[in-house]
């Protein structure tokens, strides 16, 4: 079936003004948005630029705004979308070209939360034991693919360049709630601040945007609760 794609274009070397360009693509059943973008790039317009890699929802490269909602182009089927399909870069990040956004700040914020196990030297040459119940405490936290869809969808992030954003805070929670980790207070030096846990206004846009069905807001609330309980 032939479908129309209205795509955000921005090529700074050609013009400082972005524009929309419409392409018509024959979309067989089970065609994804990424398939359609590839078809445009390979058959119609080689200049259309976007990021992509795994094409099955695992690597997180191809997050973009599709008919007004953030998602992964590779896992959204064209036949689930109505009308002319509008494709735009994720909001909240600087657009570098077409659908490619600058992810440097996003990654810098993630790195700032010390996203690694903070722990002393293990007392064993073998594995440290962790019960399945303890291991479950990080389910829903460690699966994040860093696509950036959640942080991009967060109104608090749009208005505050320093706000770490939901993805970084989810990552912080992934380590803080790992029972092998002892770095909670070290991380809280950064997170217990206006640009950290307290900038979130529980708007839940991040939850809606996450293609992996994770819940950054809940992670933020869990961190706040732990902070509160440890302060008492």
């Amino acid at each position, binding site marked *: 079936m032939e479908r129309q794609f209205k795509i955000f274009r921005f090529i700074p070397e050609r013009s400082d003004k972005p524009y929309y360009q419409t392409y018509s693509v024959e979309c067989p059943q089970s065609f994804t948005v990424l398939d359609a973008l590839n078809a445009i790039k*390979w058959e119609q317009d080689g*200049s259309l*630029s976007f990021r992509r*890699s*795994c094409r099955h929802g*695992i*690597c997180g*490269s191809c997050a973009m705004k599709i008919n007004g909602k953030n998602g992964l182009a590779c896992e959204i089927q064209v036949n689930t979308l109505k009308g002319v399909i509008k494709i735009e870069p994720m909001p909240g990040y600087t657009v570098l070209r077409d659908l490619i956004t600058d992810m440097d700040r996003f990654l810098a914020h993630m790195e700032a939360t010390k996203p690694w196990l903070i722990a002393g030297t293990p007392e064993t040459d073998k594995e440290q034991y*962790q019960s399945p119940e303890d291991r479950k405490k990080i389910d829903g936290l460690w*699966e994040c693919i860093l696509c950036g869809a959640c942080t991009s969808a967060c109104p608090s992030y749009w208005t505050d360049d320093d706000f770490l954003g939901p993805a970084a805070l989810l990552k912080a929670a992934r380590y803080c709630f790992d029972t092998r980790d002892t770095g909670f207070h070290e991380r809280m030096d950064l997170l217990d601040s206006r640009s950290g846990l307290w900038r979130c206004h529980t708007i839940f846009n991040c939850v809606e945007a996450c293609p992996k069905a994770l819940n950054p807001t809940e992670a933020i609330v869990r961190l706040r609760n732990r902070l509160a309980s440890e302060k008492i």
Partner: protein
Amino acid sequence: MEHHRHDVVVVGAGIAGLYAAMKAGESADVAVISKIYPTRSHSGAAQGGCAAALGNETEDNWEYHFYDTVRGSDYLGDQDAQELLVKEAIPVMYEMEHLGVPFSRTPEGKIAQRRFGGHFAKFGKAPVQRACYAADRSGHAQLHCLYEQSLKQGVRFYNEFLVVSLMIEDGECHGVVALELKTGELHAFWGRATMLATGGYARAWKVTSNSHANTGDGLSLVSSCGIPLEDMEFVQFHPTGLYPLGVLVSEAARGEGGILLNKDGDRFMKKYAEAKMELAPRDVVSRAETTEILEGRGIDGNDYVHLDLTHLGAAKILERLPQVHELVMKFAGVDCTKEPIPIRPTAHYSMGGIPVDLNTRVLMDGRKEPVVGLYASGECACVSNHGANRLGTNSTLEAAVCGRIGGMAMADFVKEKGPVKVGVAIDTSDVENEMAHYMDHEGREKAGVIRQELQEAMQEHCGVFREKEGLATLVETIRALQERFEHVGLEDKTKAYNTELCELIELKHMLDFSEVIAVSGLAREECRGAHWRTDFIGRNDEEWHKHTLAFKKPDGTIELKYKPVVITKYPPEARKY
């Protein structure tokens, strides 16, 4: 050209590259250059687990793992390397746990382990649970952890830089030249030690489990410097690619008890591997499925069979195989707790690659003589751990073990040799001219069309089954495509994020190594592991128990040489499952 200097330059940011970077970073100044963001690397798509004979769930020891790996490789693996791999597996797994990898756990809190194809206890006689896993997102868990540890270590990341040439002179590597995608500018990265960890090349097939990024860049770069490529004809087809596109459905699905059925509802593996059934090695299962399909027993006459998990129950599927459940639902609209999954073999893994020694040093002649300062590890390298067929869960294992060894070896090398040389005169005009040529050249051909024709030809002539005529046709087809490549013109002449240029460079690599695969496969007249010739019967140890070394000559022709397989313990014997 902007110049950067580091003790160690690692190209590629999958499990192998990041493990190397993290280890070398303990004492050296390390840069990682990656054409995509590190966590986008294809290691993250590994699902089922990472093998190590920990014995947490069932009795196990490294000797069994060694035996399985040798047999799985159809006796083409080098046994010194294989022994090192399976012994190192154990401390490496514990190290990854200490680093924070969120492994699933046994009831008593140890690393959980599951069954996988080709892995057994007691020298093939008993089942074993050897694959250490984090649900079915094991590669994701390892990749992210190693990335985060590398950040902690202060490793410098150059993201979205595509390496376009190696700076090798007089048998010594001084680093790489890379294209910065953001600006379109070339950068020189000078390193005392350089590691290639650029991954696999199964993007050359139409039906593949691989990422768009898996274009075998490192192999072609090495080959163009006169270094041979080893055993390139051995390409693994994973038995459970989701129909039609080949996205991976983890072997963990069979490890957890999934079964394969043809159109008659017949569990056909009993005909092909009576004892091990669905848990026979991948080459065996992929041939069985292809035979069923070719003989008309695909589902509804189509070219797929069924993987049935429904008897496992929704609770087990959702706990152990959540990603399989999600993938199959999203990409095939199938609820695998209720319905069988349509699957067929999919191009998955490259057993061959850049010849390296046990310390991951790249071998100039493919045998003994290292290129000073150049290392390779992970899927792009051939040490050879996997010989003619890799066992499931030995790939992320190899990436971790060899990345780690390489990282330590590079750190030692830097200590011995001191900081990177300054002022070595390296002529980079060739690569500068090549890039300028791509940008200026006008031509009628489109890279996308050539790539598609290459993928279709590889799919048709270089799949699970091969024969002389098809491979000869393939060689001709690839050479014709290489000719046409000279007439490709870019539509996009801009510099910033010119992804059309990037895809063009990747296509050049694909055409280069595909020719090596076809030529090597045409020459090897036997059936061994993943290389199965329908015009020859069985394995021919007398003539073909040897590694292929394919040299690209300056005139563009490919010369084949061979080297012996290292046998330390198990001489070749019949391989039955």
